[in-house]
């Protein structure tokens, strides 16, 4: 989920070319009928590939000058180029998802083009507008119903939960608040059609060669050591709880709250684990079995007795310590007191 952060006022000169072009396009007449604004917006919208219109201060002023109820809803995405680098805000992702909703809406409902407009507004260009809306943290998306007069009160901000599932939840938000149905979101495929065709051709060409090799029996697949390594790796990967780390996006370690210079690698409590912790224990799980296999299959073929003896002692010591360490960590982490049951007469 996105983290909200306060906007900084550090800004630089922004290239205002787009702004200038828009100004040139703007007719000078100040009193405008809603029709002309709508047609202008439609023109702007069709110029943009996704249907999202870049909102400038003058354009906003003219939209707001229209008498309420306006003939359309509009949805505003507040953007700040300077914050695109902050990964935890995921502004670029949201922006592209916003564009996706917009393009999906226009493809699904070509007859309702004038009923809702999608805008984006840039912080460094339009700080005054940001102040007008009372927006001081990003990410922020707002829906303005036709009747909205007061920018702050009458508009509906999108909750964090509404863009948590990206375009789909944004579409649901629009549907629930504006009664306009967005329809299915059309995501561009991950690989383009040309790429698919290329891959398909490559596979087709490669298959006969592979089959020939396969029948001859000399591919990597026939090397059992690779399979062995693969199986061991899958095992290590799973028992270390790496899936948990991926699904929950756990960090490898935490900073100690009391002492920021120290790192916390092990988390107490069985419901959660840190990345490094999982891999450490997964390594301990795996190493014992590997050493045992080493002793029973490799060491046994060594001729030299002393080498055998020394290696075995080391192996046994390492295995013993590994098991002991895991037992200790488990008791510490889960707090279970595992105990045996002795006959009552022994006590």
């Amino acid at each position, binding site marked *: 989920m996105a983290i909200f952060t306060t906007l900084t006022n550090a800004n630089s000169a922004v290239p205002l070319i787009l702004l200038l072009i828009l100004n040139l396009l703007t007719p000078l007449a100040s009193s405008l009928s809603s029709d002309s604004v709508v047609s202008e917006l439609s023109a702007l919208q069709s110029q943009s590939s996704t249907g999202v219109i870049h909102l400038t201060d003058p354009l906003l002023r003219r939209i707001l000058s229209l008498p309420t109820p306006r003939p359309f809803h509009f949805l505003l995405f507040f953007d700040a180029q300077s914050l695109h680098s902050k990964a935890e805000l995921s502004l670029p992702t949201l922006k592209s998802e916003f564009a996706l909703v917009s393009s999906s809406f226009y493809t699904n409902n070509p007859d309702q083009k004038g009923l809702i407009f999608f805008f984006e507004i840039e912080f460094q260009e339009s700080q005054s507008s940001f102040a007008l809306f009372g927006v001081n943290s990003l990410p922020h998306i707002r829906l303005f119903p036709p009747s909205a007069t007061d920018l702050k009160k009458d508009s509906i901000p999108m909750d964090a939960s509404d863009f948590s*599932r990206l375009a789909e939840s944004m579409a649901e938000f629009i549907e629930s608040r504006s009664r306009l149905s967005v329809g299915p979101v059309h995501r561009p495929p991950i690989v383009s059609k040309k790429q698919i065709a290329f891959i398909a051709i490559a596979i087709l060409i490669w*298959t*006969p060669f592979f089959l020939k090799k*396969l*029948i001859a029996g000399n591919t990597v*697949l*026939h090397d*059992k*050591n690779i*399979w*062995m390594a*693969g*199986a*061991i790796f*899958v*095992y*290590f*990967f*799973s*028992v*270390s*709880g790496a*899936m*948990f780390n*991926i*699904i929950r996006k756990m960090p490898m370690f935490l900073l100690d709250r009391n002492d920021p210079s120290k790192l916390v690698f092990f988390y107490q409590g*069985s*419901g959660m*684990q840190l990345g490094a912790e*999982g891999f450490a224990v997964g390594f301990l*799980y795996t190493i*014992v*079995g*590997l050493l*045992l*296999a080493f*002793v*029973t*299959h490799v*060491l*046994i*073929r060594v001729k030299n*007795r002393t080498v*055998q*003896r020394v290696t075995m*002692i080391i192996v*046994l010591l390492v*295995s*013993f310590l*590994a*098991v002991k360490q*895991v037992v200790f960590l*488990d008791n510490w*982490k*889960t707090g*279970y007191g*595992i*105990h*045996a*049951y002795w006959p009552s007469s022994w006590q």
Partner: protein
Amino acid sequence: MAALDTPQPSTLRHAFGNVLSLFILLLIGVLAFSIRLFSVIKYESVIHEFDPYFNYRVTQFLTKNGIYDFWNWFDDRTWYPLGRVIGGTVFPGLTLTAGTLWRILNTLNIPLSVETVCVFTAPIFSAFASWATYLLTKEVKGVGAGLTAAALLAMVPSYISRSVAGSYDNEAVAIFALIFTFYLYIKALNTGSLFYATLNAIAYFYMVCSWGGYTFIINLIPMHVLLCIVTGRYSSRLYIAYAPLVVLGTLLASLVPVVGFNAVMTSEHFASFLVFIIIHVVALVYYIKGILSPQMFKVAVTLVVSIGLIVCGAVLAVLIALVASSPTKGWSGRSLSLLDPTYASKYIPIIASVSEHQPPTWPSYFMDINVLAFLVPAGIIACFLPLSDASSFAVLYIATSVYFSGVMVRLMLVLAPAACIMSGIALSEAFGVFTRSIKFQLPGVSQNSPVNAGDTGTVIQNDVVKTEKSEDSLKERPSRKNKKKEKDKTERASVVRQIEKRLLVLPLEASVIAIFLLVLLGAFYVVHCVWAAAEAYSAPSIVLTSRSHDGLHVFDDFREAYGWLRHNTEVDDKVASWWDYGYQTTAMANRTVIVDNNTWNNTHIATVGTAMSSPEKAAWEIFNSLDVKYVLVVFGGLVGYPSDDINKFLWMVRIGGGVFPHIKEPDYLRDGQYRIDSQATPTMLNCLMYKLSYYRFVETDGKGFDRVRNTEIGKKYFKLTHFEEVFTTHHWMVRIFKLKPPKNRIRGKTKKAKSKTSSKRSGTPKKNPWH
């Protein structure tokens, strides 16, 4: 069983070994059965938890009315007024098994009640499962590994958690069916016998009857077949083992009503059909290779490969078109979340929210398979040295199941048998090496005495024969005579190897230490398993106990309440409660419920959730429209029972609000915090759940101190207007309220008031979704 498969049944020594292993197996069965009896000893012989009660009730119906009525059973005691078709929506394997057991016992004049049979079904099948593990592991790596694996499985905590006495659930028999199906597949693969292949299809049918997890089998076996083909291990035995399974298995599977045409329509099964086609193409290639000269074959290969490719391509295209035409690509959400682990958390919150579907952390592995986690890698490596068809299957099984268990903690149950097999192999190999080292180096024992070739010798020999057999897997299966000759050859070879192996020993004292440590590891495993069985997994959750300074307290409130309902209400009365208690109410109180644990109708559950979150009057109207007479709430505030309805209440609000938007979660939260003390919101303090839970609660201690939430309740003195308390159990854990009849409510008021209320009732239809 063991006596049939010995290489040299003539010698007394082997006969003794077989009798001994039979005896060990018997003891393992006893161990598997008795370690699961802690729940009966510590508590009593009672069905556990929620779902088992439903299974119990279905079994009762089956034994009373027979199989045809069971098949056509429409249950009107639940999901009132909708009802539920039971016959077509349950996996009938468990029920039929227990019903048959009961019938057999009765014909033998052993008068056990249905409940007793149900309670002990799971332990009995655990014993069967450990025997099946023995058979499977024996096929992979010999008798020694088989016995070790069976002993490990008999007490693996992960399996115990689902199969203690009283835990009468599908998984209890399904794990046995799973292992047994795998055994028969491997047996068919090793022998090339159509008999075992047919049995395999029948075992698969039993698995399909028992558990939705059968899709694991129908994907794992094709994967193994494909693996064998790709790595050049195709043989006619493989064909015999696989083709009948797909044909017969699919036909049989579609006979189960709950699966039906899914057996050919859903993507989970497509892999098996695809591999079915591939194996035919490969079989054709091998056939042509056999009848043509090498030069001719080269010409033919190009032809066959191109034709085969075209056929495969066409079928693939059809399959892809079929799959792509369905919205979820033909995969159920749960299967998808296994393939793409982040899928559920992104798209299906209801799957992601269930605790069983969470990914496990490393302590879960230590809790559920304990020291086996250390031994599995050694087992994997042992399976590769040497690699046979059977051992490659074992490796595939562990690799897939360990990955799946990493995604969903619930699938740890499928991992457990694989981990036991691998650890059994590892332990048996290690013990073999170390005991050999000790035996041949003990001072005072002559090296050449024939007696020394003893136990380990047979195991090794066994292995060698197997390996040789599988190494020439490309050859056709030799005729019996040839086989005998070959066997003689291999036996001679094995004697040579044995002498070689005698030289392969480790230092004596290090081996002694190693054996000591391994035994220590095993002992730790036993201690852990017994502890887990006794402490962690045996609580029936229908009877609770707590130990305090003044002795043991037993809380038997649930059965008290259900008993009260059974004896004090009319047979056709409807009881409303949160869905958790639906199965128990129908099974124990025999009263009709509105919703139960089979959560198939979200709207219905949301209606009950809405009623519980509404003020008294609105709730009364909803319940009255559903013909509800009694409302049952579970309340833990007096004794400190944490999983009560107040703690589940936010889910009721969420689910209710999901369908009826006038219920809003923020109304029940003060600054995002869920609280029931004086800071609580008025909506919270006026909702039905709060009122029913805390009605007269202040009379217990004068302050109304809730021992679960550790706070004094917000609203202490209030009266109920539309409900009346009819029963509260000994520890106040279950409270039953009756809906007041409407005329009582307006008696004594003026006619004007009467007309007012009636107009109000008709004027507020929005609040009541059933008007």
